[in-house]
């Protein structure tokens, strides 16, 4: 009796899909600290948090949608488009709230369009949002002719997105934490969260039980689009300039974060907290490798390796955890 109980106790953490990413965060922290003691400094941690914020906010939206069973490849393009819209409006005399609402509204509108094409047009979201991504990029490049768009006016309110709070820690990290917390809570502790998981896990079952599958998925698309818009605003508020190529590749990084954090590509599995932690892990590794003095070109290869390793861990651990749950 005692050994089996002990085994149970030891296996409790395996019930949580975040276990792979949390373990990785701790292991890498140990390695990087060993290589360079500065890794444990508050400045470094703040730097990681800032770096994690933009990717993390997008990963929160993308993982939310992925759990509902759909992809969003247009987040990188929305990231650029929404912040560019805000810059243009601010430069042309619109007020700060107007610009912010318009930017977030653009994110929501793209989300709705993605939902319409995917759900009404019945085109896989992978294709629908890939098309959306190219369309938005094309429009941005055509409008700007490739030139970055600069904020030409002073907008003190922008500090709510990215001003430093203490030392190197910025408001953006707070936004990230708050959003991750809120959406994790929605997913785990509300009826709507239950529907999200059901819709992603088995749309037919959800539909048979009376869940409005299309509505739930549409909300997911809108959340994803708006999170990308918010991340864009945060980047813009700090650097006051938006490149038309800003956010290229972010969509894949966000999906990678979601997967490292325990989301399944087929939907229904994963948590928002896991994706958020994975965004932190990705930033930790980027920063840690630099502090450790590793040849800089290794980073991307390292990320690929990590994605595969954590992917395997998640798969195995998920099975073990379920069996002994």
């Amino acid at each position, binding site marked *: 009796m005692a050994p089996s109980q002990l085994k149970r106790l030891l296996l409790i953490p395996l019930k949580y899909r975040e276990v792979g990413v949390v373990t990785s965060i701790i292991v890498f922290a140990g390695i990087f600290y060993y290589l*360079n003691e*500065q890794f444990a*400094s508050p*400045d*470094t941690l703040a*730097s990681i948090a*800032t*770096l994690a914020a*933009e990717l993390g906010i997008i990963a929160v939206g993308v993982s939310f949608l992925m759990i509902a069973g759909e992809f969003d490849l247009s987040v990188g393009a929305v990231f650029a488009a929404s912040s560019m*819209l805000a810059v*243009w409006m601010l430069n042309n005399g619109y007020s700060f709230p107007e610009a912010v609402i318009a930017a977030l509204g653009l994110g929501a509108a793209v989300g709705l*369009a993605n939902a*319409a*094409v995917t759900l*009404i*047009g*019945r085109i896989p979201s992978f294709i629908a949002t890939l098309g959306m991504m190219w*369309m*938005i990029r*094309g*429009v941005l*490049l*055509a*409008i*700007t*002719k*490739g*030139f*970055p*768009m600069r904020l030409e006016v002073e907008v003190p309110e922008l500090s709510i997105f990215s001003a430093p709070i203490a030392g190197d820690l910025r408001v953006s990290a707070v936004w990230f934490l708050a959003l991750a917390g809120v959406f994790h809570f929605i997913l785990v502790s509300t009826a709507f969260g239950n529907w999200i998981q059901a819709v992603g896990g088995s749309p037919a079952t959800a539909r048979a039980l009376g869940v409005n599958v299309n509505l739930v998925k549409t909300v997911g698309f809108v959340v994803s689009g708006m999170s990308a818009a918010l991340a864009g605003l945060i*980047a813009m508020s*700090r*650097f006051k*300039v938006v*490149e*038309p*190529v*800003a*956010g*290229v*590749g*972010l969509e894949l990084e966000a999906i990678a974060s979601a997967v490292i954090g325990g989301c399944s590509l087929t939907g229904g599995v994963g948590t928002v907290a896991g994706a958020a932690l994975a965004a932190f892990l990705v*930033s930790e590794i*980027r*920063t840690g490798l*630099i*502090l*450790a*003095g590793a*040849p*800089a*070109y290794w*980073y*991307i290869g390292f990320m690929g390796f990590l994605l595969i390793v954590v992917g395997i861990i998640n798969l195995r651990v998920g099975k073990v955890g379920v069996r002994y749950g």
Partner: protein
Amino acid sequence: MPRRSRKGQAFTSTQIIAVIVVGIVALAVGFYAGRATAPEAAPAAGEAVTVTETVTSTVTTTVTMGEKREPEFTFYYISHGGPADPWWGPVIKGAELAGQMLGVKVVYQGPEKFSIKWLVDALQAASAAKPDGIIITITDYKALDEPLRKVIAQGIPVIAVNVPDPRPPDERIPYLGYVGQDEYQAGYKLAEYVIKWFKEKYGRLPKNAFIGIHEVGHVGLELRAKGIQDAFRDAGAPYVPEKLDITTDITKAYETMKSYLRANPDVEVIFTLGPLGAHPAMQLIRDEGLVGKVYVATVDLDDQILQGIKDGVVIAAVSQQPFAQGFLPVVYMYLYVKYGIVPPDHVPTGPTIITKELLGVVEKQIQTTGGA
């Protein structure tokens, strides 16, 4: 039964309408925004007729001079640089202006995304149009070797621009000449100037330096980086500036360089290879209160970088004169086609080192050409 027919057909009319509506809305928004923000397309809008066609992945700009005057010649300007890279803006402008001044039709073509295959396809399409001359970047001499030789054999003159065929003269593609700078030289000269500047100011080399590269594996950028490293080697520095992958994402670039500075507090110079690296580097130095302690040296110029030179954040910037790279090949092609004047083997457009002393001149250049 509606339910039945819905299954039978691939799409119902509602579905098709939904997709079309979304598409139209997106295009309308784009069009409206385009009108609202598009920069002035042509400097002399009154007398010039400017036609801009956009084909999915290609930007084609056609310029003709005068209202009714027929262009004397048609030149194709094919490059690997499209609208995604603002560096090519002045190039396009320069080519357009030369075309207007000489009464020549210049068709500029550049892909939206870097692609050698696109370049070869565009060359073939251009040669089929039987133009009077082709100006092209030799971005990949192996891929372009055969098609270009064929074009030249057909009697269409070719001028290389921006990137030459690096092989010895008797092996390389027999184009008339090359207009542009040497990427390696750009990096080398920049680093050479920085070393000289440090020696004059502090009587020594910089204690440490690194190179922020925003597109790893891009041959042009890697050559610039190699030039910088070699200049340090030749100057007898005890270290070689390390390459740091800063990506094209501004937040990542900023935090990556910040971490590197933390790990290597003796860094005194940050080399960047374009505005995408220079902007976050300048902001980092200002944010961290490192002005006068850490300096930026960069390739390429824009208004932000000029401001940096003014403020003493940037020691120097190298310009390879994109406007001239647009303007000059058109002029040389015109001279060849009309008067039979063979251009020189290499017409250098850079590197020019831009420092505080040259600011006045360069500001005028930026105002008139949109970049440097």
